[in-house]
């Protein structure tokens, strides 16, 4: 995914599909069950997606947990733009939506949801953002793809697919909500400073 939230059509043209729609579905179903198992029923789980592609992923995970447990799961979005450490490296970017469920996050098990885990800087920023909003009991991280190359000591609790990549490659996640269909593509990099999270 690109920082501006758009899928690059040129990358898509030469890219190889590493996860297709049904595989993404299965990965999300598995993550939903893992969250339920580790949280012993998910009674205090709040799912927070990181814009832009983390938000529909959090929504889908919440729906799956609801289907299994038969009760509502609070979900929202957490924009981390204002907390990024690379703000000064690029022109000011538009903010995403921050939408915290009305019950707040104090004492909850917050699962952060993002599409790609890369340097770990987005997650660091998200932890800072959470700090300003409240005090969760525990924070866990769920990602669709872990592509490696961490620059910070960050680890995901739930991973859809571990995807060993080269730094010369890009991982593009397409989801039906913004893009019309589901796919994870691996393609050649275009030069830009580490912007994925």
């Amino acid at each position, binding site marked *: 995914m690109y920082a501006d939230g758009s899928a690059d059509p040129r990358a898509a043209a030469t890219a190889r599909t590493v996860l297709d729609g049904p595989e993404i579905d299965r990965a999300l179903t598995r993550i939903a069950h893992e969250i339920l198992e580790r949280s012993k029923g998910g009674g205090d789980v709040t799912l927070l997606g990181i814009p832009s592609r983390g938000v529909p992923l959090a929504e889908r995970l919440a729906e799956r947990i609801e289907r299994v447990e038969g009760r509502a799961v609070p979900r929202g979005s957490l*924009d981390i733009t*204002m907390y990024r450490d690379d*703000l000064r*490296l*690029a*022109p*000011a970017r538009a903010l995403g939506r921050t939408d915290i469920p009305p019950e707040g996050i104090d004492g909850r098990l917050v699962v952060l949801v993002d599409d790609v885990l890369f340097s770990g800087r987005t997650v660091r920023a998200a932890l800072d953002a959470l700090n*300003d909003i409240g005090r969760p009991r525990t924070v866990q991280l769920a990602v669709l793809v872990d592509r490696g190359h961490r620059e910070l000591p960050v680890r995901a609790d739930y991973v859809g697919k571990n995807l060993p990549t080269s730094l010369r490659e890009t991982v593009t996640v397409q989801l039906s909500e913004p893009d019309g269909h589901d796919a994870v593509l691996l393609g050649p990099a275009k030069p830009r400073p580490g912007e994925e999270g």
Partner: protein
Amino acid sequence: MRHLLSTGDLSRDEALLVLDTAAELAQVGDRSVKKLPTLRGRTVVNLFYEDSTRTRTSFELAAKRLSADVVNFSAKGSSVAKGESLKDTALTLQAMGADSVVVRHSASGAAHRLSEWVDGAVLNAGDGTHEHPTQALLDVFTMRERLGRLEGLRVAIVGDVLHSRVARSNVLLLHTLGAEVTLVAPPTLVPVSVHTWPCSVSYDLDAVLPKSDVVMLLRVQAERMHDAFFPTAREYSRRYGLDAERFARMQDDAIVMHPGPMVRGMEISAEVADSARTTVNEQVANGVSVRMAVLYLLLGGS
């Protein structure tokens, strides 16, 4: 966008970006921790040659909520009183490492001149009778919050247009965003150049009132009036003041705005000023969000 000197410099997309950013930042004011780390290590100087507690405090709060360091520099009791020129003051600020200068000056064009002398971003917080862009942005933000749209909105700006930088900034911005503006004022308080502005002019408040979605009252700026522009305050009030009777003839969902400070009993009756359809206090709260958005967009990136 490097400086914010005039709302006329803003494209439609840029203006909407400021409004959308402000809408997101408004949430920060509702939190227990009202602070973002975005501008950590940046310095914002408030350079105020005219007294303005409201605007200065609003800018100060906005910068502090984004974790910037704020230096307040008021002309009174400073080297300005000893005769230092604007340019020398600017170069001093530059040497002190200011990333941004928020300037209020009694001379039209002062902010523009300043932007030629300093490297940092210059934000015009009111220059003479010229412009006050963040005020217009917060006014438009308030209209969009209250009425849900800007396109096609009919806005009447009433009162001392001649001395008002708020009026000019609003006319330009509202025009960019697709609203129709009518200026309503005594002929003596309409600027000579008004035919070049993208708006219409009327001298009759009662004719414009029932057609307006927004009625924005301006303060009669007695301190800038070195001539007699109208016979008496009473006559002004009778023809251009918003009292309960006129208020009753407005559309049911129309709102009343005022940039403050209000002169109760002259431009606006106390009854109207305290009505739920008057947005004066909302405008102040929105001012902080809008100024945060502008500071973020000017200073947040490279």
